């Protein structure tokens, strides 16, 4: 009898734990970290460097990314398997989840926060959902490649004036979708922007969209103040006469690294970071680095650029001084250094180390490791400050 009472009490205690109460706090110093193999995310506190919740059941999170609601309470996580999951980070639970495609590659939230767009490989196209309850608002199929397949969509970002911009990998197009009237998306198609655009980015101010090209040298630039002028190729002479190396991981263009008037970009197939002057978009230099860059990210104040690398050099991170354009530090954090995320004011950077199952936190002034926390096969790190940044 006593044992039974104990069991009852224990189960009551357990259920109280299981339905853990939601936190009462601001979310401005919170974030999520993708656990790519487990299909879960950890909700973290940036200030204490601790995990708050682990949320499971998000499907295949290889290559997953996330955006935030404008109140910074909800994270929308885009899975590889077409899953779109809305997570309440104050309560550590999933509020909505849809499997909206067969194979996806990220998404974006609209300027007004009301719409979530998802970029799909299979079936190729973009689907747009209500950020409230993830009901479908618009379905935008990509150009057909043959009778069975449509082009894969890549580099999807939000842009000012309630627009989304993305590129079509197989057919070399960049589309601008105006969602001012959600019932009637207005699509402007730019054809023949270049061969095999593999990713895209938008400048912080939302003016320029740039698609990286895998099938040829150069990048395709679209001025969103003048979309009627179409795209133009920039840096098309980059790498001419130089042997391109095999690419073991596609670079990412998400982190637009701007320092002053200069942009820093990964050199595809080269052990180089390219430096470009904004405006005329002419190259001003190349910085030799340890391997082929994947992410080239600026510390928010633009004083440093942090770079990680493709296989087989993904055990290394390098830091570049943006004034001297020199590598000032080479870190060896461990194999599978996949992603970096800066604190919004830049004092720290968090780095995912996949093969060590940990996150390492570096002080960006001393360039020293100051904390680490256990995370199962971590990949993307997303802080809530992204809620207020165009393109993130």
């Amino acid at each position, binding site marked *: 009898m006593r044992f039974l009472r104990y069991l009852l009490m224990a189960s009551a205690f357990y259920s109280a734990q299981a339905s853990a109460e939601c936190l009462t706090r601001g979310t401005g110093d919170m974030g999520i970290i993708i656990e790519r193999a487990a299909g879960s995310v950890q909700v973290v506190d940036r200030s204490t460097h601790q995990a708050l919740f682990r949320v499971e059941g998000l499907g295949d999170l290889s*290559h997953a990314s996330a955006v935030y609601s404008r109140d910074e309470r909800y994270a929308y996580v885009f899975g590889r398997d077409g899953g779109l999951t809305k997570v309440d980070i104050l309560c550590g639970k999933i509020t909505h989840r849809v499997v909206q495609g067969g194979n996806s590659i990220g998404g974006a939230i609209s300027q007004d926060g009301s719409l979530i767009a998802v970029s799909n490989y299979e079936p190729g196209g973009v689907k747009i959902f209500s950020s409230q309850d993830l009901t479908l608002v618009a379905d935008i199929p990509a150009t057909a490649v043959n009778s069975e397949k449509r082009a894969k969509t890549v580099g999807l970002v939000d842009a000012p004036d309630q627009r989304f911009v993305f590129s079509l990998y197989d057919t070399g197009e960049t589309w601008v979708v105006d969602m001012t009237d959600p019932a009637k998306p207005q699509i402007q198609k730019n054809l023949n922007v270049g061969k095999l655009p593999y990713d895209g980015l938008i400048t912080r101010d939302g003016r320029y969209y740039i698609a990286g090209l895998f099938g040829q040298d150069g990048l395709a630039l679209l001025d969103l103040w003048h979309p009627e002028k179409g795209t133009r190729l920039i840096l098309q002479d980059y790498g001419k006469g130089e042997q391109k190396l095999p*690419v073991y991981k*596609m670079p990412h263009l998400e982190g637009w690294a701007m320092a002053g008037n200069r942009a820093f970009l990964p050199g595809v197939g080269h052990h180089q970071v390219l430096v470009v002057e904004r405006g005329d978009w002419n190259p001003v230099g190349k910085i030799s680095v340890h391997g082929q860059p994947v992410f080239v990210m600026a510390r928010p104040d633009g004083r440093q650029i942090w770079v990680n690398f493709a296989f*087989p050099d993904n055990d290394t991170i390098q830091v570049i001084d943006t004034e001297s354009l020199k590598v000032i530090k080479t870190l060896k954090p461990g194999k599978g250094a996949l992603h970096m995320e800066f604190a919004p004011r830049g004092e720290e950077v968090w780095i995912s180390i996949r093969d060590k199952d940990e996150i390492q936190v570096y002080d960006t002034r001393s360039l020293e490791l100051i904390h680490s926390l256990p995370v199962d096969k971590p990949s993307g790190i997303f802080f809530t400050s992204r809620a207020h940044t165009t393109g993130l």
Partner: protein
Amino acid sequence: MKKNIALITALLIATGICTVNAAEIHPQRQAELLYLLKHDCGSCHGMRLEGGLGPALTAKRLAPYGIEFLALTIVQGRPGTPMPPWRPFITDPEAYWLAGQLKQGVNQ
């Protein structure tokens, strides 16, 4: 396409790549190769090999291709596509073994 596969296979047999014995791959190396397949090949083909920017590598999709053809694709890459040659990291016998795993449906 079929003709190409047959031709490349014939070439492979001529150059001796088909004579390798998969049993030569040490179990520890097998585990490393499967990890590489999941996480590094997976960055284009999907961690579950169901496709991404690169095509799916499921047994069903690979059914029309011979092991030799797949092994050659692994070590030499596929010119004109983003598929790079893995020769610096994977030997011919290892590629042959990996191709066999893919044909059988690893991860499924």
